[in-house]
């Protein structure tokens, strides 16, 4: 942690600088079209020619008309401050002044990011808990049964090549048909995505005790359950947490994916709505909210990890 602040700030500043510069060529065609509509003469005049011309060339030929590069409504690449404004408006401003904001209505506004992040968060957590629970159970099974290991493990790997994300809408419809609606279908997708890292990590963790640690148990004539409780599970804790960090991030992706087809709120719905109406800064704002949520979740797991390991005495 020590000594990262300076470099991180530097990198962020560099990214922002590059971003602002990139806005010009990225948005140049829209900027020029808008300028042309306002009566400016741009070169080349024909929009079809402009489509086929290089962006840098357009920038160089029309340096006088680039003022709008950082303030376009439907920018191909919105400028950072546009996103910041959007973030501010959809969090603080909306809650303070919006018709449905917390000040005026007493509940979080569905036009604000906080409300949607909350929806996503709960689906994520629910899915994560389900996925982690099942993952641990399967890992325990795999470690104790050779049959289970040999049968299930290869297919668990193959299952990861199935583009579950692409199937999300179908899964949701299928779950509809068995009467599951609302948060649960999203949680199922979340669980599916977080399940695999947990299985892999826990199998590794439950197997991490070395032969002499197992032999020690054997010399005590310890039962399988005693070995599990007193040796395998404690030994697997560091592995578990490493997997949980991957798992919770995957879970978040799952929840967001699950929100795309069912437009009933959540950051996923928000992103799609942004895309649907060409509100690029809305997509970006939702994206950043999602990344921040992910960072928060991973950090929480990390904090839990530190606390647990300290309680266990493992530094």
């Amino acid at each position, binding site marked *: 942690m020590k000594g990262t602040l300076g470099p991180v700030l530097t990198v962020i500043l560099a990214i922002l600088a590059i971003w602002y510069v990139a806005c010009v060529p990225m948005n140049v065609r829209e900027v020029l079209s808008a300028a042309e509509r306002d009566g400016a003469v741009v070169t080349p005049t024909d929009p079809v020619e402009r489509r086929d011309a290089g962006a840098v060339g357009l920038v160089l030929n029309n340096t006088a008309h680039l003022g709008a590069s950082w303030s376009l409504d439907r920018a191909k690449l919105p400028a950072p401050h546009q996103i910041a404004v959007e973030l501010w408006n959809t969090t603080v401003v909306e809650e303070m002044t919006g018709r449905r904001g917390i000040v005026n209505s007493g509940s979080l506004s569905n036009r604000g990011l906080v409300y949607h992040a909350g929806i996503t968060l709960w689906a994520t957590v629910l899915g994560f808990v389900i996925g982690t629970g099942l993952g641990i159970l399967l890992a325990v099974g795999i470690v104790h049964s050779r049959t289970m290991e040999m049968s299930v493990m290869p297919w668990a790997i193959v299952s990861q090549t199935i583009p579950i994300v692409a199937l999300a809408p179908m899964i949701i419809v299928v779950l509809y048909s068995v009467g599951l609606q609302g948060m649960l279908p999203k949680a199922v997708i979340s669980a599916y995505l977080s399940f695999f890292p947990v299985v892999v990590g826990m199998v590794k963790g439950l197997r991490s005790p070395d032969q*002499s*640690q197992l*032999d*020690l*148990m*054997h*010399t*005590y*004539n*310890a039962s399988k359950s*005693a070995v599990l409780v*007193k*040796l395998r599970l*404690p*030994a697997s*804790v560091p592995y578990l947490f490493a997997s949980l960090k991957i798992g919770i991030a995957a879970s978040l992706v799952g929840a967001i994916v699950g929100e795309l087809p069912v437009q009933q709120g959540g950051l996923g719905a928000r992103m799609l709505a942004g895309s649907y109406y060409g509100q690029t800064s809305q997509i970006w704002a939702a994206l950043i909210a999602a990344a921040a949520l992910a960072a928060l979740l991973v950090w929480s797991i990390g904090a839990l990890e530190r606390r647990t390991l300290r309680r*266990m*005495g*493992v*530094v």
Partner: protein
Amino acid sequence: MTDAVISAQHLDLTFQTGDGPVHALRDVNLTIDKGDFVSFIGPSGCGKTTFLRCIAGLETPTGGDLTVNGMTPDEARKARAYGYVFQAAGLYPWRTIGGNIRLPLEIMGFSKADQAERVKRVLELVDLAGFEKKYPWQLSGGMQQRASIARALAFDADILLMDEPFGALDEIVRDHLNEELLKLWARTEKTIGFVTHSIPEAVYLSTKIVVMSPRPGRITDVIDSPLPRERPLDIRDTPEFIAIAHRVREGLRAGHQED
């Protein structure tokens, strides 16, 4: 043979591995009496660990007879007839020293009060009173090894099997622990099986030294030590000591040259 605690007759063990069978023990005959301190010495791979594991019921011989306290090793294991100390201390890092010593007691179902009492007693025995609440990594290597001995002593088995317990420690600490071990043995009158690589260690500690040689592992020499039971550290500079050490070294060298 009335007093034989451990008795092996024509013991044979072959491991089936991917590269074909490994003959780890061949025709091993040995009797260990109650109260003996027996060291096993031999080059790497000669089967010392394997033999100790057979006694502990952790490995099943493929031939011959082996009894521990008159039972099969597996029965003896289930009767918790012995404590086992591994090369590395092998304390569970998530348990305190006290928790580690309590581990076998929990598994064997001792009462809470009994557990606490025993932990206290063995910690004193190995000179670690006051370290109960510490975690293993807060202790030096030598202290950890003492804790692992305490763990093996906690449930008061008559036999103590130790597989290179001091292999990872430096010579000075090792000397010190050897002294302590002898005292402990004198106090508790346990039967001890002890694996080591070090000739001085074997000679210093044992009443009986078993020299082994590899491929296939077998016993080449059994030396009954004429040294007194009471042994100060500088007994190692005496001619008797040096003579035994010499005999052990020769036995080892002979085994080595064969291959």
